[in-house]
């Protein structure tokens, strides 16, 4: 069970990506491939505010990840948190592809049978989202790029990543918005996936009939008005 610790490799930080709030690097953490995410400071914010916001968001991200782990949702293993530079180090999910790439590859190789082939995946996604929402975790940025398929895609071993916008909330409103964000992301990145989203929702309902009903009805409401609540009256 103990993984051999090969520490001969020198630690070199390799830049991968930068988003609005953080930079992501690949490196080596005592012999294990690791991803580090550094929330950089924003020069346009007041230093005190900047510090407290960055720390708050780092905390929220780490808490959401461990909450998901407690709920039995696969997330990367956390290795180390450095609050002084607002960086955290987590396991790199090796031998994986994003759900996005997988859907694209299936859709191009077999456009007619895609729906059928992707159904089990959609079901699994619905199940995971339902579990997550039951545990009062709102991901905040559900896209097909933030879901990884580990190993053989047919194993449906989905790992959720990027909890940078997540928060803890049990309100149906937030769950509805979370689902709506995912629907928009799915439909805009992958054409003709309306049916697939229906499968996601069906599985979402089935996993927890009692609690999902409110979220689904909120989803319909959010669809009519968009993600932001109207503040009239």
């Amino acid at each position, binding site marked *: *069970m*103990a*993984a*051999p*610790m090969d*520490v001969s490799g020198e*630690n070199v930080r390799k830049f991968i990506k930068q988003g609005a709030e953080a930079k992501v690097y690949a490196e080596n*953490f*005592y012999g*294990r491939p690791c991803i580090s995410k550094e929330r950089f400071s924003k020069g346009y914010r007041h230093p005190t505010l900047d510090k407290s916001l960055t720390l708050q968001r780092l*905390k929220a991200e*780490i*808490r959401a*990840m*461990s909450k998901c*782990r*407690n*709920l*039995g*949702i*696969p997330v990367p*293993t*956390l*290795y*180390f*948190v*450095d*609050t*002084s530079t607002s960086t955290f*180090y987590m*396991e790199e999910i090796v031998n994986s592809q994003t759900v996005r790439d997988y859907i694209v590859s299936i859709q191009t190789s077999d456009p007619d049978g895609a729906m059928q082939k992707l159904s089990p995946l959609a079901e699994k996604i619905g199940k995971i989202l339902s579990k997550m929402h039951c545990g009062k975790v709102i991901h905040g940025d559900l896209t097909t790029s933030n879901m990884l398929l580990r190993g053989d895609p047919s194993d449906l071993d989905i790992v959720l990543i990027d909890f940078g916008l997540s928060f803890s909330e049990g309100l149906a409103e937030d769950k509805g918005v979370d689902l709506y964000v995912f629907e928009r992301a799915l439909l805009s990145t992958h054409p003709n996936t309306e049916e697939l989203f229906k499968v996601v929702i069906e599985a979402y309902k089935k996993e927890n009939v009692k609690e999902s009903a409110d979220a689904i009805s909120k989803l319909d409401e959010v669809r009519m008005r968009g993600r932001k609540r109207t503040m009239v009256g």
Partner: protein
Amino acid sequence: MDFKVTHHLYPNFSITLALYKDVTNMEALRQCVMKGEFEATLLKPSMICDPFIVLTAANRAVYLDKTNKMTTKNVHSEVLYCLSPTKNITDSFRKFGVGDKDNSVFIVLLNDLDGAKMEFIKSKIEGCQISIDEVSNFKDETQVKKIYKVTDLEVNTCSLSDVIVSRVASKEFLTV
């Protein structure tokens, strides 16, 4: 046979791990550490299911030392505290520190780049050194799961070792 690495953030700070079995003078060893004859962390091997967990705890302890955020008195006791899921120091020592009656010990030694301190400690131990990877043979899984409050739900998604590594790394943000 000991395992030595330099700290992830501070390359001039080393972490050395070693595992001993059939130790006959545990009581004397503990006295040595308590009297300050040498500094080291003496862990109970039955509480460790993977050396990597100790490495994450030691990594964190050194970091806390360097940033002046330690909870305990010195960096070696901080390793023990980092490893433990509770915020109670005495409790951490009792659960993860080696006891007088134990006959195996997992040693963590920090800041020993030239290996001199390790040599000194080795001269004090009456026991047989084995590879740190063998620590999994000593583990008391039920006890480990109980202390870290690991649920079956978690172990289904990843290994017990990974669950604990995450716990150790996120300790300061979790309320127990």
